[in-house]
């Protein structure tokens, strides 16, 4: 589903060049739940942003379902972000002046659905993450875990091929983190959602099929997990 070949990301020029990604290659299959781990500065977030088309690679190839997406023009990248990819930010990245439902259904409206249809889709997505009855609340009226679940609802409402999550539990306590990870697990198991999650918590890997570990911009290890491991 995702094929990454020799992906590089450099910042700056000359002696000041920082090599965030030094040419990484891997493949992710449909329906996989993958954790990307590594120390701070190892390149995991940089990779995720490139995969979600929020940033550009300096070099290398990146295809999703056979489509070379890294070289798409901005208008198509925007459409791709809207329809094919869901992205969950570490700090939720909700629009504070929008209710939970509005934060979710704005994307359906962007896709051309009617307001009524978008609203129904948003309520379904919010229900899927356990936020029934909280659709009218604005982010300030929600707990950290609830905010992150709204962000997940926003990401999954459009039924994307792949869901990217950048340290989704970084600002959450254990209870809320478990709630969020349970949602991911359910999405993966029940709906076959492909999920790529950046994390630095080891216990999060209990939820995933595979762990790719980064070190200094390169892949240190790529391990598939078996049940109970």
């Amino acid at each position, binding site marked *: 589903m995702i094929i990454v070949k020799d992906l590089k990301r450099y910042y700056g020029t000359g002696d000041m060049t920082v090599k965030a990604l030094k040419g990484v290659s891997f493949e992710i299959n449909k329906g996989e739940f993958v954790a990307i781990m590594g120390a701070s500065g190892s390149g995991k977030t940089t990779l995720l942003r490139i995969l979600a088309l929020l*940033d550009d690679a300096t070099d290398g190839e990146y295809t999703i379902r056979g489509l070379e997406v890294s070289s798409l023009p901005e208008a198509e990248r925007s459409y791709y972000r*809207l*329809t094919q990819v869901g992205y969950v*930010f570490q700090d939720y990245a909700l*629009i504070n*002046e929008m209710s939970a439902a509005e934060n979710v259904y704005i994307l359906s409206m*962007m896709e051309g659905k009617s307001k009524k249809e978008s609203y129904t889709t948003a309520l379904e997505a919010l229900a899927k993450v356990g936020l029934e009855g909280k659709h009218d609340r*604005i982010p300030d009226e929600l707990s950290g875990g609830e905010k992150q679940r709204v962000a997940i609802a926003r990401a999954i409402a459009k039924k994307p091929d792949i869901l990217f999550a950048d340290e989704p539990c970084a600002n959450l306590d254990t209870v809320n983190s478990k709630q969020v990870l349970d949602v991911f697990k359910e999405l993966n198991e029940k709906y076959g959602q492909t999920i790529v999650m950046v994390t630095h918590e080891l216990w999060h890997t209990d939820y995933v099929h595979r762990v790719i570990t980064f070190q200094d911009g390169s892949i240190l290890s790529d391990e598939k997990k078996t049940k109970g491991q």
Partner: protein
Amino acid sequence: MINDIRVGALIAYCSVKRGNKKTLIFIVFVLSLIFLNLVFLPSMIGGLSGLFTGFMRDYPYGDIVIEPTGDNTYINNADLVLKKVRAVEGVRAATKRLDAGASINHKQKVVGATITGLLPTEEYDISRYPYIINEGDFLGELSRDEIIIGAMIAGTGFGAEIYDNLGEVRPGALVDVTYSNGVKRTYKVKGIMTGSIEVVDLNALVNYKEIEDVYGLEGKEATSIVVRVNKEGTEAQIQDKIREAGVNEEIFTWADKSEALIKQAMQSMGAIDIMSKIVSLIVGAALVLIIIYINVLNRKKEIGILKAVGITPRSIVLSYAFLSTFYVCLGISAGLILYLSLMLYFQMNPVTFYETMEISPTIDPMLLIQSIATMLTLSVIAGILPAWSVSKESILKAIWGR
């Protein structure tokens, strides 16, 4: 595009609905002052212009004035012209006048003036002369040895310190008048007129027959024929009809005359008006831009997030266009309320100008429409420019500043 508009409208709606109300009130207040600044001074100048125009219509020119052609001093067939004019549909009244230059002497004080010979009873339908006699009475049909003197000449009104005058002449006093052809007459002052403008208060009035007699005319001449129409705004049509009726003299509407006469007087005010409008527009544009720009900068992260989740830059730009248009619409509404309140106040308490003239600002619908259109155009530009600039930034820079 429809989706962009819908999403842009939703973003703008949420921003207004749940945004900071104090900020909204402040923005609307500032915008209302910008609008007020655009319309208030022109309204005052419009009031001043209207006042002068009113004077011109009420005294020397009426709605339409007919004057001799070329170098001729008189309209030689004035009665025939009058007959043709009065027969034109839409003409309410018309009269003939004879103007003459003269000096007026009273107790060794001499002043130069234009003396207008008029038909007193006809003037009641033509001008305000009969109604501005503040001492004594207006001329009668048979008045021959009587004169009405403007307050500035008489020295009884405003301007006595500025202009030469006869030293507080009162009704009943005798004055000697020497006409431009050397003929001397003595008149009893019948009344003092106060028109609050020099074209009236520096003049004098006598019976038409008196000027005719002094200059040896034959009862058919006039220096002008002054016409009033039934319906305001029909002057130009009636001007054409008078021409079609066979009047070959020079025919002017009050607007033609005012344009030439008031132009000069209003030039300075007009320059101030234009400068004020330009400055207001520049200040207004800058303020609207600054307000929206600060607003956009505060929402830079939000713009990045919206882009990151797939909202098109066009939707984002449109949302700010809608938002700034909404702010400006509220600003215009508040500005209109302020403006109309001020108009009401100044209608009831006119500004006194030149000690005698009371200026009430005029509400010019065209000016209001122009100012509203200008503000709305500015708002769209001011909303689009900064949002467009931020929406072009990379997502990472917008969200995380790098």
